[in-house]
């Protein structure tokens, strides 16, 4: 005795049609979770889509921490920056000075002196009266341009002058400036002759 399978579909002549079914919940949840994790990853590894932050740096803090802030290069750069802002207007960014305005610093015996006592007094106290530079007499007044600068900045700018434009002389440290500042009496602007009386 034979039995017809009860689940056999009824034959039909109709064309097959595509139907729409709801997406399973787990796909929706997984997609949202992946999207969320993706955004968290981007946030963590690109400083919230910052154009400057990408591998090997993963955050603004990390990039900031690796900025070189010390060392000879930074000091020289700081000196150049201060020079161009404060001194360069009269003495020229090339250190050549300006006729009738300011004497040159490039090759100047005041800048290249062995000791920095007289050199440091010029920005700290100012100049009034005659001053001989490279065999030429200058009769001009200079205000105490460096009196308001921090020790480190003044040291950096003096170091820069002593080593820029072909100059070659020793380094000036913030401690040197601190010492000279504390020993300075009165701080009145001086002429070249008065300065020559001071120790070098």
């Amino acid at each position: 005795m034979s039995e017809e399978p009860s689940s056999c579909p009824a034959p039909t002549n109709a064309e097959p049609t595509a139907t729409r079914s709801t997406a399973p919940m787990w796909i929706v949840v997984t997609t949202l979770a992946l999207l969320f994790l993706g955004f968290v990853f981007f946030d963590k590894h690109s400083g919230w889509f910052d154009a400057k932050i990408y591998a090997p740096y993963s955050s603004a803090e990390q990039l900031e921490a690796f900025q070189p802030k010390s060392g000879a290069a930074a000091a020289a750069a700081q000196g150049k920056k201060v020079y161009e802002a404060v001194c360069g207007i009269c003495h020229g960014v090339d250190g050549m000075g300006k006729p009738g305005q300011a004497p040159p610093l490039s090759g100047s015996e005041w800048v290249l002196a062995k000791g920095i006592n007289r050199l440091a007094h010029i920005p700290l106290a100012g100049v009034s009266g005659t001053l001989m530079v490279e065999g030429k007499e200058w009769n001009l007044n200079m205000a105490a341009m460096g009196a308001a600068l921090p020790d480190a900045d003044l040291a950096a700018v003096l170091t820069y002058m002593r080593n820029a434009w072909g100059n070659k002389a020793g380094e000036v440290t913030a401690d040197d400036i601190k010492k000279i500042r504390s020993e300075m009496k009165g701080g009145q602007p001086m002429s070249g002759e008065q300065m020559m009386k001071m120790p070098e």
Partner: protein
Amino acid sequence: MKNGFAVFFAVVVVLGGSWLGFVVAPALQLGKAKQATILNSTDTWPQQRTGEATLGLQIYRANGCAACHTEQIRQDGVAAEVTLTGLGNSKPDDLKAFVHSLFVLPELAKLTNDLATTLKDWKGDLPTTILTTGDKAVADAFADRLKAAGAKSETRVVATGADLPRWGVRRSVAADYLYDFPVQLGGLRVGPDLANVGARLPDANWQLLHLYAPKLSVTNSAMPSFKFLFDVRKMGSAPASDALNLPPAFAPAAGYEVVPKLEAKELVAYLLSLRADAPLYEAPFSPVTSAKP
């Protein structure tokens, strides 16, 4: 069509999504890029190319240089180096003992082996790099301790990776390409990377000789000769001022000389304008400065 709207919608989402991701987002990020400022300096980066070098970019493009050369230096990581520059009043042995006494610090736990190896053979010569670490905070803390002990040190930031220091000092950044049109990134390195070639090989004469006869300076070079960028012409009473100074094996027949055409000069001007050697905020490193006077 059944579900026509759904298909259309899906296409719009896919194409629109890619357009947003690959066109709009980068344009928002870098579309208004301006010159960057070099670290610890007031100078801007990069400088606009000279006219000659700008024309040279088109020669570079026309000759398909980008097929074998890339202009992108990659960087895998970054390290902080503590370099000892002065000992103060202490002797080398005192400093060694002091550093050994720091080995108990938890932040130095992973570095003690390196430190011990470095210090073992050190006889007091300065400057010397004693610590290299990927963690800037550890390097700074170590430098502070050295300072407290009276020694002078400098913390340097160094870019690391397989491309460095072979081809450059830091990774290529978006600002480097500010004046390139079209950007010649390249994707295949048959030849070396050229992103920093202007700083690596700054001799224009060397570049001209290399274009004329690559095997002259690099014996096993795979680069074809770009002889067609040069004129071989009969010499006048004296060689021209810009004639190449070639060794006999590569020289033309007697009485002839090789002079670069305008294209060769422009291409070399472009090559020499390719530099990636200034420290920028997004790619910091400590430049090497000449020794103090």
